[in-house]
């Protein structure tokens, strides 16, 4: 199937998980290694991405557009955009990270990983579990095993129990 064209710009359709369609310039998706290969090698004009929610796809396309417009003069503006881009609930950040990893948009993946790390920073184990809604799945044996590995590191915990 040949890509449809408008003037000189090739147009491509991305289909999100809920069948919502996004029409965009082919040059934009070239930032994704996965899509780039599909477009270049298989010459497709419509790419289904059933594993990516439309909401997530909207965010990613928004990023690709902004990134394509990046010039030395609007660097500051782009930085602010990036900051806002990851200022979302963690669930959404996870969806974006997973999708970006799948699409192989390397720069954005690094940025997402940093954004997740920033949410972990300066927080206790319990706080991280609460914020990320992760249940501890360590068996008591495992707990004691890694306590053995760094016994001094956990002196603080032992002190706390006496408070």
């Amino acid at each position, binding site marked *: 199937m040949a890509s449809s064209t408008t003037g000189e710009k090739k147009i491509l359709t991305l289909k999100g998980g809920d069948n919502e369609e996004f029409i965009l310039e082919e040059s934009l998706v070239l930032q994704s290694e996965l899509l780039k290969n599909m477009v270049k090698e298989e010459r497709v004009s419509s790419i289904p991405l059933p594993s990516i929610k439309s909401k997530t796809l909207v965010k990613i396309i928004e990023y690709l557009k902004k990134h394509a417009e990046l010039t030395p003069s609007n660097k500051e503006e782009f930085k602010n955009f990036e900051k806002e881009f990851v*200022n*979302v*609930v*963690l*669930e*959404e950040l*996870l*969806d974006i*990270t*997973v999708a970006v*990893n799948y699409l192989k948009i390397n720069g954005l*993946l*690094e940025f997402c*990983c*940093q954004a*997740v*790390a920033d*949410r*972990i*920073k*300066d*927080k*206790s*184990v*319990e*706080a*991280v*579990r*609460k*914020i*990320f*809604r*992760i*249940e*501890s*799945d*360590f068996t008591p044996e*495992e707990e004691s095993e*890694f306590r053995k*590995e*760094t*016994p*001094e*590191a*956990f*002196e*603080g*915990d032992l*002190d*706390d*129990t006496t*408070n």
Partner: protein
Amino acid sequence: MLRPKRRIQKEPRGVKQKKLKASSSSSLPPPSSSLPSSPSLPLSPPPPWVELPLDITANILQRLRTIEILENAQRVCTAWWKASHDPTVWRVIDLRNHDVDAKTPRMLENMCRIAVDRSQGQLLKINIENFGSRDLLNYIAERSSQLRYLRFVKCYYILDGCLAAAVKNFPLLEELHIYFSDINKDHIEVIGHSCPQLKSFTLNARGFRGYQYDDEALAVARSMPELRHLSLFGNVLTNEGLRAILHGCPHLQSLDLRHCYNIKLKRDLRRRCRQQIVHLKHPRDSTYGYEFDAQICDYSPPVGDFPWSFDDHFNEFELEWW
């Protein structure tokens, strides 16, 4: 509405855990992140963080401080525990003994060894501040042949001699930064010869007046021909030492001579510096922003009311604005 993160952090851990235990039994707490929340969130299942591919989780964890990974992140769940054993997480180790969560030197050494073990020989960059021992340095040296960057701050007494022997295991070392630690001229030469790719060298000390000594500078000049960046903050070298460096390190681009009060940059030497060095910091340049104590030990005999002559000062000023 939002509670500052710092405040949460400063609460005693035991108290915090008790509070959490009390609340978790009744209902799921709302996400405490400071972010716009979607109305449906409390009803949705927990996001599957634990299902992230291991390399992505490792990519996230490697951005945390070494202490943070060992004390907190790896203890969150088994997926993170597994990811925290990925060697890519430990390519950079940064351990400082002046964090808010104070640790004893022994605890930090223990953590450092664990981090080095987990790097499985892939360690590229390590920073150690305010702790360390000869044993630890040897431990790192025996396991980190890929090391490119090594930084010691206030690791008194452990470096001299020991470092010269250890760096023989770091043939790829490109940067060595030493702050407030003694190291003698012979060992500087051994280091230079052992690390032919050394591009950046720092030997920063406390500023000192009333004493001249060029041997360290001469050792740098003799053994580190590939240097691009050199910092000798507070060194007692003289013009002779500086000339030797300019000659011995022809690729030098940046040179920090702040608090090097024996340097008098006049005429030829000034011209020579200007020709060769792109970024030169003069002995009396501002220390604003310098991350360590920039106090000076002054043992010089008093000269009038001023510790330096007006001529010198004038020349510096002139050069700066040239």
